[in-house]
C-alpha cells in the first residue's frame, strides 16, 4: 500500500460541503429561540438608564436581560484568559455592560424572541440613556493619555514589558553606523465569511448542557461556560460544527454571547441561538495589527547588526481578554532568521475605546517581520549593499541549530529555533524570482516609462505551540477506524490530513478512517486551534494513538493466528504474516476477538463468546489489559518548532494613479515534511491573499469619536479575485523538525506574515520613496509622492 504521507489526496470534507450538506452554526437549531443584542452606539459612555417598556409589546418577545438580571458569577467580568506578570492592569468586559461602555458594539441588553427579526425589533425599542465620556481612539491619543479608557488605569497602559539579550545600548553606542526608523501598521481583522454563533440546549431531566459554537476551542469554551454557570465539565458538551473560517478571532472565549446564550437556555428551558451578523462582527468581535514602532539599530560596515533596540506601542482595544500574546509574539518573532549581537525590545500595551484586539492569522508576526525587514532594507540602502547580501550576513547558519535567541516565547518557554536552513531558502527564492536578473528588467521597463520594483522579506514562525493535544483511535468491528482529537477545524482539512496519518500508521485504507474534531463528547482534553499547531500537535497525537492501537491489534491477532507478533504486519486493513498476504485476518475481526463477549450480536461476534474456546485458566481480560482495539495518546513537546519562509514580489506602480499592481509573487517555504502538499499550498494561497489585503487594502477606519466608518463589506476592502496576484509561485524546502515524531512544522499562518514587509519593499524600490507605514492605498502613495518629493528619497 502506498504511503498517504506526502500525497495530495482530495479532501474527505469536500463532498458534504459541495452539496450544501455542511452544518454550520446557523444551520442548526431550527426550533431555537433567537437572540439579538442592544449594543452601545457610543465608544465611551456611562449608562444612566435602561428603559425596556417600549419593547415589551413586540409580539414573540420572550425575555429581555440586562446586567441587573445576571446571577453572581455571570455578573463578574469575563476571564482574563492568559495572565502575564507584566499585565499589571488587565481589564475584561462584563457579559452585559454594567455602568460603562468602552467601545461601539459592546453588548448592553440581550433580547430573546421567537424569531431573529422580532428580537431585533425589540432590541431597537430598548431605550438606553448614556452620558458620553471622552473617547480614546488611536495609539497617538492612547499614548498621550489626556483621557483614560478605564479611570483606574493610569496612562491607558495595560502592560509594559521588556525583553533583552546582550548590552544593546553599548553595542549601539560603539557601532560604526546607527539608524533610527519609525514604523507603523494599522488595524485589520480576521473577517471570516461566517461570523460568530452559539446554540445552547439544556436538558432539564439530565441537568446537562449541550452547546454548539463556532469556535477555535471547544474545550476552552466548555471550561469557561461550566465555570460561569456552576456546572461540572462532565455536565457540559461543547460541539464545534462546521466553521466558516476563523483566522484567530474565534480562539477568543468565552465571548459574552457564549455564556449568555446557555444561561438563557437553562433559564427558559428552550434551545436558544445567537447568530452574529456582519456589522456585529465588525464592531463586537475582535481586530488586530495596530502598532507603532521606533527602531534604533547599530551595524558594522558589512551590514551586520550589532545592537537592535525596538520600542513599540500596541493598541489592545477596550479590553485584554487574550492577554499579551500579540505584542509578545511581535517582540520575539521580530528577529526572524537573523542574529543580532544584542537586542532589546520594550512595549506598552495600551487601551483605546475601540474593539478589542486579539490574534489574527500571524498574530504579531506580520508587524515584527515588517519592522525587521524594513530595518534590514534601510541598512542595505545606507551601505549601498544588495538587500539579499545584508540578509545573508545576518542569517543564523544551519550548523548553529538549535539556536537560542535568548528570549522567552509566547508559550513561556525559551525562544530556541529547532531547525532550518535560511541560506538555502534565500538561494531558492533568488532563483525563483530571478533576483539577480531583475535590475535589467527594471531598467528596460523604466526606458518605457514604467516603474517596477522588487522586494523580499524573510520570517521565522514559532508553530506547534503547547501545552499538548491528544488523540483517540478505535477500530470498529466493521473494520472502520474512528479517530478523535479535541481541537477544532475551520477549513484547514484536518479530517483529511489526520486520516492520512492514521491510515499510514495503522495500515488501513484512507476511506476507512473517519476523523472527528472539536467535540468534547469524543475527546475531552484539548487546547485549541491556533499558532499553526494542528498538524504538529494533533497530527503527532493521533499518530501515537494509532501506533498503540496497532500494537494491540497485532498482539491479539498473533494470539489468534498462533504466530509471533514480530511476524505480523497490517496492510489494507488485514493483519497478515509478513510475505504471506493470504494468511491474515481482517482488522474488524481482530476488534471482535479483542472484546470477550457473553452475547453474540452477529455471526462474527460468535467467535468472541464464552463457549467459543480460549485459555480457561486465564481471565478473559488480563489485569493489565482492556477490551477493544483502541489507542489514546498525548503529544506535548518541550517547546515550539520553528517554520520559516521568504517571499519576493515584483510590483508596478502607476506613475499617474499610484495604483500598485503585483506582477509576480514568489514564496519559498519550509514547514518540515509536507503531509498533503495541495493543502499546504492552499494555506499559503489564502495567507498571501490576506497579506496582500493587509498591505494594500484593509484598514479599520475609526473616526475621532470611535465610530467604525467602514463596518461593512461595501467599505472594508477585503480582496476579491481581482486584488490578488494572478499566480503565486511556490517552492518548498523540507528541514524536518526534531521535536515531533513526524518531523513537521506548522503552515497555517505562514502565507500572511511577510505580506506588508515584502510589498512595502517592492513599492519602495519602484518609487524610491521610503515606505514606513502600511497598509498603503493609491491615495496614500500619491500623498507620499507629493509630500515627500525627493527630499526623503533613497540616494
Amino acid at each position, binding site marked *: 500500500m502506498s504511503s498517504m504521507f506526502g500525497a495530495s489526496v482530495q479532501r474527505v470534507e469536500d463532498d458534504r460541503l459541495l452539496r*450544501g450538506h455542511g452544518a454550520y452554526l446557523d444551520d442548526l437549531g431550527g426550533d431555537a429561540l433567537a437572540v439579538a443584542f442592544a449594543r452601545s452606539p457610543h465608544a465611551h459612555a456611562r449608562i444612566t438608564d435602561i428603559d425596556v417598556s417600549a419593547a415589551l409589546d413586540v409580539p414573540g418577545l420572550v425575555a429581555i436581560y440586562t446586567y441587573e438580571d445576571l446571577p453572581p458569577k455571570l455578573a463578574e467580568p469575563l476571564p482574563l484568559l492568559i495572565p502575564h506578570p507584566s499585565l499589571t492592569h488587565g481589564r475584561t468586559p462584563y457579559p452585559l455592560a454594567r455602568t460603562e461602555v468602552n467601545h461601539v458594539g459592546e453588548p448592553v441588553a440581550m433580547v430573546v424572541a421567537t424569531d431573529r427579526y422580532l428580537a431585533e425589533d425589540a432590541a431597537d425599542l430598548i431605550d438606553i440613556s448614556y452620558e458620553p465620556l471622552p473617547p480614546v481612539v488611536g495609539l497617538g491619543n492612547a499614548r498621550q493619555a489626556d483621557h483614560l479608557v478605564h479611570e483606574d488605569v493610569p496612562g491607558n497602559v495595560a502592560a509594559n514589558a521588556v525583553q533583552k539579550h546582550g548590552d544593546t545600548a553599548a553595542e549601539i553606542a560603539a557601532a560604526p553606523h546607527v539608524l533610527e526608523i519609525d514604523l507603523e501598521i494599522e488595524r485589520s481583522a480576521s473577517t471570516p*465569511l461566517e461570523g460568530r454563533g452559539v446554540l445552547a440546549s439544556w436538558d432539564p431531566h439530565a441537568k446537562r448542557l449541550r452547546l454548539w459554537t463556532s469556535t477555535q476551542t471547544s474545550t476552552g469554551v466548555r471550561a469557561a461556560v461550566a465555570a460561569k454557570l456552576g456546572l461540572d465539565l462532565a455536565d457540559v458538551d461543547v460541539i464545534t460544527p462546521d466553521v466558516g473560517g476563523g483566522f484567530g478571532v474565534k480562539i477568543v472565549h468565552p465571548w459574552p454571547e457564549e455564556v449568555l446564550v446557555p444561561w438563557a437556555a437553562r433559564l427558559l428551558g428552550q434551545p436558544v441561538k445567537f447568530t452574529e451578523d456582519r456589522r456585529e462582527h465588525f464592531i463586537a468581535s475582535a481586530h488586530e495589527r495596530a502598532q507603532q514602532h521606533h527602531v534604533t539599530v547599530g551595524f558594522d560596515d558589512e551590514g551586520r547588526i550589532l545592537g537592535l533596540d525596538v520600542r513599540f506601542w500596541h493598541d489592545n482595544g477596550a479590553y485584554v481578554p487574550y492577554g499579551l500574546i500579540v505584542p509578545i509574539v511581535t517582540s520575539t518573532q521580530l528577529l526572524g532568521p537573523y542574529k543580532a549581537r544584542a537586542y532589546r525590545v520594550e512595549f506598552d500595551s495600551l487601551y483605546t475605546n475601540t474593539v478589542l484586539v486579539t490574534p489574527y492569522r500571524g498574530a504579531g508576526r506580520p508587524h515584527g517581520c515588517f519592522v525587521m525587514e524594513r530595518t534590514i532594507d534601510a541598512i542595505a540602502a545606507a551601505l549601498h549593499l544588495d538587500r539579499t547580501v545584508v540578509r545573508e550576513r545576518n542569517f543564523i547558519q544551519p550548523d548553529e541549530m538549535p539556536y537560542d535567541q535568548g528570549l522567552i516565547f509566547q508559550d513561556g518557554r525559551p525562544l530556541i529555533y529547532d531547525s532550518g536552513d535560511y541560506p538555502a531558502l534565500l538561494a531558492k527564492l533568488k532563483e525563483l524570482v530571478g533576483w539577480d536578473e531583475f535590475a535589467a528588467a527594471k531598467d528596460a521597463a523604466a526606458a518605457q516609462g514604467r516603474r517596477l520594483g522588487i522586494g523580499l522579506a524573510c520570517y521565522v514562525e514559532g508553530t506547534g505551540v503547547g501545552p499538548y493535544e491528544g488523540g483517540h483511535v478505535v477500530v470498529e468491528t466493521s473494520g472502520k477506524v474512528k479517530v478523535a482529537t479535541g481541537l477544532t477545524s475551520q477549513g484547514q482539512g484536518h479530517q483529511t490530513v489526520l486520516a492520512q496519518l492514521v491510515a499510514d500508521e495503522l495500515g488501513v485504507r484512507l476511506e476507512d478512517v473517519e476523523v472527528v474534531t472539536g467535540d468534547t463528547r469524543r475527546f475531552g482534553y484539548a487546547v485549541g486551534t491556533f499558532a499553526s499547531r494542528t498538524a504538529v500537535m494533533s497530527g503527532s497525537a493521533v499518530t501515537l494513538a494509532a501506533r498503540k492501537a496497532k500494537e494491540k491489534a497485532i498482539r491479539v491477532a498473533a494470539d489468534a493466528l498462533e504466530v509471533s507478533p514480530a511476524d505480523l504486519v497490517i496492510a489494507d486493513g488485514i493483519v497478515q504474516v509478513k510475505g504471506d498476504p493470504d494468511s491474515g485476518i481482517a482488522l474488524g475481526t481482530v476488534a471482535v476477538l479483542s472484546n470477550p463477549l457473553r452475547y453474540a450480536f452477529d455471526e462474527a461476534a460468535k467467535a468472541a463468546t464464552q463457549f467459543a474456546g480460549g485459555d480457561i485458566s486465564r481471565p478473559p481480560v488480563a489485569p493489565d489489559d482492556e477490551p477493544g482495539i483502541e489507542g489514546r495518546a498525548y503529544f506535548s513537546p518541550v517547546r515550539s518548532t520553528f517554520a520559516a519562509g521568504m517571499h519576493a514580489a515584483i510590483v508596478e506602480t502607476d506613475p499617474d494613479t499610484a495604483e500598485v499592481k503585483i506582477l509576480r509573487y514568489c514564496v519559498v517555504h519550509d514547514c518540515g515534511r509536507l503531509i498533503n502538499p495541495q493543502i499546504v499550498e492552499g494555506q499559503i494561497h489564502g495567507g498571501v491573499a490576506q497579506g496582500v489585503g493587509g498591505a494594500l487594502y484593509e484598514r479599520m477606519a475609526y473616526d475621532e469619536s470611535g465610530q467604525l466608518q467602514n463596518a461593512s463589506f461595501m467599505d472594508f476592502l477585503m480582496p476579491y479575485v481581482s486584488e490578488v496576484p494572478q499566480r503565486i509561485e511556490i517552492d518548498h524546502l523540507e528541514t524536518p523538525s526534531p521535536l515531533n515524531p513526524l518531523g513537521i512544522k506548522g503552515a497555517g499562518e505562514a502565507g500572511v506574515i511577510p505580506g506588508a514587509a515584502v510589498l512595502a519593499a517592492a513599492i519602495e524600490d519602484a518609487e524610491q520613496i521610503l515606505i514606513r507605514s502600511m497598509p498603503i492605498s493609491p491615495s496614500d502613495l500619491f500623498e507620499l509622492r507629493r509630500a515627500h518629493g525627493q527630499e526623503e528619497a533613497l540616494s
Partner: protein
Amino acid sequence: MTKPEELHEVAMTVNGATRTARVPARRLLSDCLRHDLGLTGTHVGCEHGVCGACTILLDGAPVRSCLLLAVSADGAKITTVEGLAEPDGSLSAVQQAFTECHGLQCGFCTPGFLTTITAGLRAVPEPTDDQIREMVGGNLCRCTGYQNIVASVRRAAQIQRDRAGRP
C-alpha cells in the same frame, strides 16, 4: 408594533419541487430558503449583497438571495446548491472540479461560487482566464486566495467537455 405580522403565501419551484411557505413581507429570500424550507446550504455572509455566499439561481440567473424578499420570488424557479448535483447523485462538473483542485477550504462561501460558476459556464462554456476572473469577481472568499477557485473553473470547463464527449 404590537400586532403579529401579516403572513403571505409564497410558492416556488425549488430544485425541481414545488415548495410553499407563509412569510412576513419583510422576510429575506435567503432566510426563507434556509429557515422556512430547511435548505441551509445557501449561506449568509453579509446580508448586504457584497460577499455572494447566498447566491442562488433564480430562473437560471445568479442572484443574491439576501437582497430579495421571499414574497417577490413567488412563482419563481430556484436552484440552490442542494440542487446542483447530477440527477444520478454524482457531483456536477463544477462541484467535481472544486474537490479536484482544492477550490474550497472552510466551504462557507462555496455554495455561492458553485451557483455563480454553474450559470457562468452555461453562458461561457470555454472561458479564458480573464473571463474566469470576471465570472467569480463578485464573490468573496477569505480562505483560498482564489488561486484554486480559478483553477477549478478551468477544470470544470474541461470536465464538462469530457462529459459531453467534446474534445
